């Protein structure tokens, strides 16, 4: 059989210091195929991509073939010459450069210096954007674009050359559903044109929708290569984590419990209108809707980051008008933001310091200094409670995986002993195995009497973890659903309609 291969990796290993990130992985992609690379965070997916593109050199003994050519001594520029393009998870764009300059930048990195050809670059950039069916101001500095548009620039940049093998690392992470659909169409077009696409995503539904085959990697070793025909999300999740995750509806009827949070006709112009909702003691209320529907804006008003224009917030039946986050914390509201990396944690600081950050004033002794034993006690308690996997509490938070970081954020807020916990997209960038762990914690907390408002744009997430689901669209709550009396497809149909 002489099948044309775009990429063939044989026995690829990579060691960082003493840690083996990849252990003898084989990986092959056919020309024109959409191939998914699946695995949990830290399983070695990104390392694999960096080896193919020449950012990293593999350990001796590995064989890399790109379109039949040996990938020894590969550099990013040489890879591009062979038709390899990458859309990095963090985009790897240049915020102060214009859209056109970003798209044309890869041509600036070559064997020998050359002159900049602004006019020609712009013509080429426009042609690529036309191919994608989007219009962007080519002269706009990148940092003036919203994140979804930047994602499009990153995709367009990858298509500037004659790409024959495109890696997409979490390309849909910051896109809305309609933008995701548009991107998936682009992927299909590329594939039809004979371009091989390696697709990495946490959204398993997406993976099964777009890819023909899926290669699963776990802990740096190859689990197997599977056709997506007949594959289910549950089975794929099982392969990725090595354990089975049966997701089921956990909803209970909490209508008898006293309300903790109530809002009455809460309105902030241009963000949300007439929001009236109730979260009861021990209840998990899911708030779902498209990105931009006003979910996060609503949360910001509840915690005093913004001031509503009208309506009322009641906490334990007493009127509350938080003027600042400190007010909200004092009143007993905790908010876990969607942007864990930049807002939720101080990355270079230690796990211990991050955990006690929100309650420092309770740990002070008479002289105003932090009491080390009290701090130690608190940190130990939460690490044990949440089973955070760490070396020592003094390691910087940045050394933890996404799921464990999320646990530290939770610990930080729960240390304030809140009555209401607002979770905003708590599993963004958290892999399948760790998600289950986080939701186990969420349910335990609810059982202990905490009222929880769970904001998420993943329907399966609210289906399986909330007691009630509120549907928000265009800043208004337009529906309430009981997870026990609906299912994921029905709910998705309503939300994405």
């Amino acid at each position: 059989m002489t099948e044309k291969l775009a990429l063939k990796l044989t026995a690829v290993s990579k060691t960082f210091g003493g840690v083996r990130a990849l252990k003898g992985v084989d990986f092959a992609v056919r020309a024109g195929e959409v191939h998914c690379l699946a695995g949990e965070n830290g399983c070695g997916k990104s390392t694999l991509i960096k080896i193919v593109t020449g950012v990293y050199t593999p350990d001796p003994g590995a064989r890399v073939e790109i379109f039949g050519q040996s990938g020894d001594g590969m550099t990013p520029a040489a890879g591009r010459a062979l038709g390899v393009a990458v859309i990095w998870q963090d985009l790897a764009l240049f915020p102060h450069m214009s859209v056109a300059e970003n798209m044309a930048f890869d041509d600036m990195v070559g064997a020998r210096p050359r002159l900049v050809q602004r006019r020609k670059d712009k013509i080429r950039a426009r042609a690529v954007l036309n191919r994608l069916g989007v219009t962007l101001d080519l002269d706009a500095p990148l940092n003036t674009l919203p994140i979804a548009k930047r994602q499009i620039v990153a995709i367009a940049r990858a298509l500037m050359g004659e790409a024959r093998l495109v890696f997409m690392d979490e390309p849909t992470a910051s896109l809305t559903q309609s933008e995701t659909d548009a991107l998936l169409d682009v992927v299909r077009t590329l594939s039809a044109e004979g371009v091989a696409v390696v697709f990495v995503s946490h959204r398993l539904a997406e993976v099964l929708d777009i890819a023909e085959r899926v290669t699963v990697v776990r802990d740096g070793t190859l689990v197997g290569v599977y056709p997506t025909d007949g594959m289910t999300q549950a089975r794929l999740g099982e392969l990725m984590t090595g354990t089975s995750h049966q997701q089921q509806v956990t909803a209970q009827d909490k209508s008898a419990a006293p309300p903790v949070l109530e809002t009455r006709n809460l309105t902030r112009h241009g963000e949300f209108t007439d929001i009236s909702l109730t979260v009861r003691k021990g209840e998990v209320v899911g708030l779902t809707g498209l990105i931009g529907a006003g979910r996060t804006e609503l949360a910001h008003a509840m915690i005093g980051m913004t001031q509503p224009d009208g309506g009322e917030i009641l906490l334990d039946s007493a009127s509350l008008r938080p003027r600042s986050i400190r007010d909200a914390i004092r009143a007993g509201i905790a908010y876990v933001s969607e942007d864990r990396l930049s807002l939720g944690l101080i990355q270079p600081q230690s796990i211990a310091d991050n955990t006690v950050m929100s309650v420092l004033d309770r740990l002070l002794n008479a002289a105003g200094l932090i009491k080390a034993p009290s701090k130690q006690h608190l940190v130990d308690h939460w690490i044990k409670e949440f089973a955070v996997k760490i070396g020592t509490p003094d390691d910087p938070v940045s050394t933890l995986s996404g799921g464990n970081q999320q646990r530290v954020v939770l610990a930080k807020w729960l240390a304030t002993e809140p009555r209401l916990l607002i979770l905003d997209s708590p599993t963004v960038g958290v892999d399948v195995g760790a998600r289950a762990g986080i939701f186990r914690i969420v349910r335990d907390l609810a059982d202990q009497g905490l009222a929880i408002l769970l904001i998420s744009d993943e329907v399966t997430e609210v289906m399986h973890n909330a007691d009630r689901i509120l549907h928000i669209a265009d800043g208004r709550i337009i529906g309430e659903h009981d997870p026990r009396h609906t299912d994921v497809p029905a709910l998705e149909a309503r939300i994405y309609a």
Partner: protein
Amino acid sequence: MLRMLKANPVEIRLFAVLVAITIGLSLATDTFLTLGNITSLLNNNAVNLIWAVGLLVVLIAGGIDISFAVAASVVQYLTAQVFAELGGNWTLGLIVAGTLGIGLGLINAALIHGFRVISIVITIATFNVFFGLLMFLTRGRNIYDLPDWWRARIFIFEYQSASGTWSELNLAFAVMVACVIATALLISFTSTGRQLYAFGDNPEGARRAGVNVALMHAIAYGWMGMMAGIGGLMQVNIAKEVVPNALYGRELEVLAAVVLGGARLGGGRGTVIGCILGVMFVAITQNGLNLLGVSPFAFQMIIGATILVAISTSNLKLDLRSLRQRRLPEPEKRNA
């Protein structure tokens, strides 16, 4: 025009302020807008501007250099040693001073790259090493015994007005023009320049695109070193002597002017035009205060305060802009 304003708001604003100051001073004094005053302004700031465009390249690449002014002094001293016996001429002088400067710049680059230490720490350290070494070698004494070509007054433009006063542009001005043009070509028209901007803007992104990080450090600090050496050479031509501590402290003056001109301390932004405007802004303000009869003791304070106001208000403006941007995309998202 609108597009240019959007792309370079700092430069445009600085230009507007500069025009306003110039008009104000022209009306307030009859000595400011004279050929003699303008040419002496240009001559006196040529060296600062040579250093400024060198520093600009380092800032664009995401670094900073505190050591360049004392490095220039070291180059002056070494160049004086080289030519004490040899005689030499301008061509040789520029080559020797430029090369020595590049050498000192590469020391910075090698330390920053080799030890992965941030540039401000390394260059503060080399600042002290260079200066200490210089004071040790010279024992703090000035060098007056310099080759004739180095001390000679060379004019590229001379004009005697009806009243008999001379206006002239000196060699330092011509060298400055060459340095400014060379820097503009490097950063705006070559792939190397784009790589420098990219590296300053997003180092990891540049690395993944295949940019040679060691080379970027070498080019940025090497270019800065070359400009430091050439600037040092020209400063001696004006001062007619090598004074070991004459340039001590000039680095902050130049840094302030470059940042005032819109170069970003985090890297990835800055233009040669902005550099020129920044240096001229400081120069004209000082010149204007002088002509208005303000006590020289107040200069530093007033200029410091001006820079403070200029830089903080430019950030304020940028914040307002980004706030508006944060609001704008929302209706669009809602439709999605």
